[in-house]
């Protein structure tokens, strides 16, 4: 069979394809050769770390952008990033943020601030970002020792869960203890209270004397990727401030680390009890994690 001769348009299309593929081959080859040299070197990291150290003040936050470079950042500056900061509830309490950035990336923590200082070290850029910070009046995770923990069965009296060494233990109930620990929610690490719901009734965590600010921020999530794989049950949290219910919300596997805000401006400056009641209709493998802060301001 004879092949019909192609139209002018077809010939042009093939020519364009020839030119495009040839050019692409050259660009891709050049990129593959050059790209490795665009990566930050160890010397870049050391120089950037030295600059951060020189200006660092206690209470500053140091972050990597993109976030996937975080472990390299911690090799150089991990001594300035304690577990509590690495596993922070959110970024809002930090006024000064040191961002070590590569490839033009910007960090979430530095997004709302203004750049006060910027220096380049090879492939890295160090920025000091000044941002409006919120004041924390009470950190429920840091003050976990103040908590009273109990378990209330359906229609039964409350049973205290006394503190045993580094955790609260509910008598006679397997897998129900409350402790402060690093949790993994949505594959990120957080410092939180691990408070698995009881098989029946409610797990109650109460702080009797909380100095209230304008806002109460509560963060919740489900700890441990294997538990999230194993089970789907929701966990309900009721929050009471001064004996009055401030809100109820449900946490599911896909919710990640969810922040909930309660307006406490009407009671700013007051000392009041805050109570968390945790229940689940399906508590198997539900490693509920909770963090909260009473803040002066909310941004």
């Amino acid at each position, binding site marked *: 069979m004879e092949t019909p001769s192609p139209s002018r348009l077809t010939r042009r299309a093939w020519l364009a394809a020839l030119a495009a*593929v040839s050019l692409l081959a050259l660009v891709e080859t050049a990129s*593959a050769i050059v790209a490795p040299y665009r*990566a930050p070197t160890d010397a870049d990291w050391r120089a950037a770390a030295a600059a951060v150290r020189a200006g660092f003040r206690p209470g500053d936050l140091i972050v990597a952008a993109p976030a996937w470079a975080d472990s390299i950042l911690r*090799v150089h500056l991990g001594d300035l990033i304690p577990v509590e900061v690495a596993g922070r509830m959110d970024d809002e309490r930090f006024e000064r943020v040191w961002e070590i950035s590569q490839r033009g990336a910007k960090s979430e923590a530095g997004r709302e601030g203004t750049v006060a200082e910027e220096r380049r070290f090879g492939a890295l850029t160090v920025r000091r970002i000044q941002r409006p910070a919120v004041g924390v009046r009470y950190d429920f995770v840091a003050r976990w020792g103040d908590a009273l923990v109990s378990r209330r069965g359906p229609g039964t009296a409350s049973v205290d869960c006394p503190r045993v060494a580094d955790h609260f233990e509910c008598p006679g109930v397997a897998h129900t203890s409350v402790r402060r620990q690093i949790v993994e929610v949505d594959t990120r690490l957080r410092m939180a209270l691990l408070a698995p719901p009881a098989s029946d009734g409610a797990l109650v965590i109460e702080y009797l004397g909380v100095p209230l600010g304008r806002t109460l921020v509560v963060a919740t999530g489900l700890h441990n990727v294997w538990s999230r794989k194993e089970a789907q049950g929701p966990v309900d949290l009721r929050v009471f401030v001064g004996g009055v219910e401030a809100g109820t919300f449900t946490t599911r596997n896909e919710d990640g680390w969810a922040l909930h805000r309660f307006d406490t401006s009407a009671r700013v400056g007051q000392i009041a009890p805050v109570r968390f009641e945790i229940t689940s209709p399906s508590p198997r493998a539900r490693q509920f994690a909770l963090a909260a802060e009473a803040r002066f301001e909310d941004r």
Partner: protein
Amino acid sequence: MKIAKLDARRIDWLITFALALATVFWLLGVEGRQGFGRDEGQYFRAGERYWGWFEELGSNIAHGELRRSFTAPVIDRYWSDNAPDHPVVMKTLYGLSWRAFHRCHCTGPTRGLHPIAVKGRHITLPLFARESTAFRFPAIIFAALLVTMVYRFARGWLSRPPAAAAAMLTLAQPHYFFHAPIACFDAPIATMAFAVGFAYWKSLRSPRWGIAAGILFGIALGVKHNAWLMPIFLVGHYLWMRRGDLRARRFPRPPLAFVAMLVLGPIIFFAHWPWLWNSPVTRTRMYINRHLQHEHYNFEYLGLNWNNPPTTTARKLIRATAPFVQTGFTVPVTTLALAAVGVAALIRRRRGQPVAPDGLDEETIAAPGASPSWLRPGADVDRAPGAFLLVQTLGPLAVLAVPSTPIFGGVKHFLTAMPYLALLAGIGAGRLISVLAGLLPAAGARLRQFAPAAFAALVCLPAVVETRRSHPDGLSHYNLLAGGFAGGASLGMNRQFWGYAVLPMLDVINRDEPANRAMYWHDVIHDAVNMYKRDGRLALDVGDMGFGEDALRRSQSGILFYEKHWAVYEGWFWESYGTTKPFMVREREGVPLVTMYRRGAP
């Protein structure tokens, strides 16, 4: 010059041989930089155990007790390792290759690290300094076979330069290249998928290839369970090729290839796997169920951790894109562009036309007056090369696009599509070479002679450079579209699995103080740790504290592979070691792969 006397057939065999040799040398030259994955560690162990059965068989024959080797307890003692997970063609080859080609230090201090008792010094042909290379050698040979088969197949349609380009582009894909030299099954099953496809294609006009298709399918069944899907794709093509029968309301004749696959496939599969012999039905069912009900291991895709079938519509849609996006982000972009040109060329092709303007045409055009039979079912029709490549390329991807299918292996789950994708790229290169030839002045004979080879070399260059760049971390590598290693990390694409990336850190671990040698190896399986020691790459006194939180808490040093779902382990390091500061991080182009912590490090 003597070469001028070579006929076309000999030149092709020479190129075939050169491609095979180049593949073997390239892979042997670099495999030592690539660490041992979880699965590979298990296959080393299983392969050596299977060898143990042959060793005992020899001993039993010598003692006149041949039947003893075929008793249920003896078979199970050796062959139940890694069963019912995978059949044993490759593992047996790995074990035999190890036994034949390693340099034996087996009676020295590593004697206790073997999965079977070492009875004495092994007499071998000591081709390889490392035991692991001897295990890996059959996989490398399979990769070379694939490259040569792609060339031979492409030569049916294309001139030499684009056919050679197709062969080279098969190998020069970072993710395929990662799998090619290791003692696993993903690259070998890609070879077998191509071999079965090749034999089927030839069988459409030649009955002896129909028998070959059945034999090759049986061997493929013994390599990996991907083989189950091969007939589906081939039936799809066959029905399309014989659509005239369907239009005429005639059922197409079942071709010899399918009959042979149906008959010989199960026989070879059953015969090759001694573990099945004792309880064929129950154990075959166990094997099939193992894969039909396979767990969804954790895998990162577009920033999300996937470890269960998606339940919402949005997640199902995202999940369905995985094989296509992964292909788009991992195969060198020039190869993809050439494949797109190849698709365009095949779409424009009319029945009876050659695949490429400058190629051979005997493969596709029906012989005048030929009549079909079940022995030559493609004798009277165009064999529909476009449809053939379409089902072979998109078929494996389509299976992985089903949201309920696990995606934990990334590209390796549809690696069988990649040689066919490279073939499409070869067709694209062939089409563009003919365009290029049309541009060259008629007088420039020398230029016209070398331009096709030069263009073929040009389009292979980025793939080769990218592949070289990716090694030994091919799983972490992403292409120009994604932005390389860093781009892949930013897009939330999977960075690695199997815990192989520790190899470059072994020197640091070896230099560590004896007090720090209580090592937590995270995802490095104990069999892999043993092999590093047997290879002489890890000090014998470095400990292995085991897996999980308790093991980590007992350790003095430990590593953590970056995979999204392992974050919980880093939390355990922070708590147990009392610091967030790693001792070191192994990275590629700034992207962290493995983090090492040391207890009490400043």
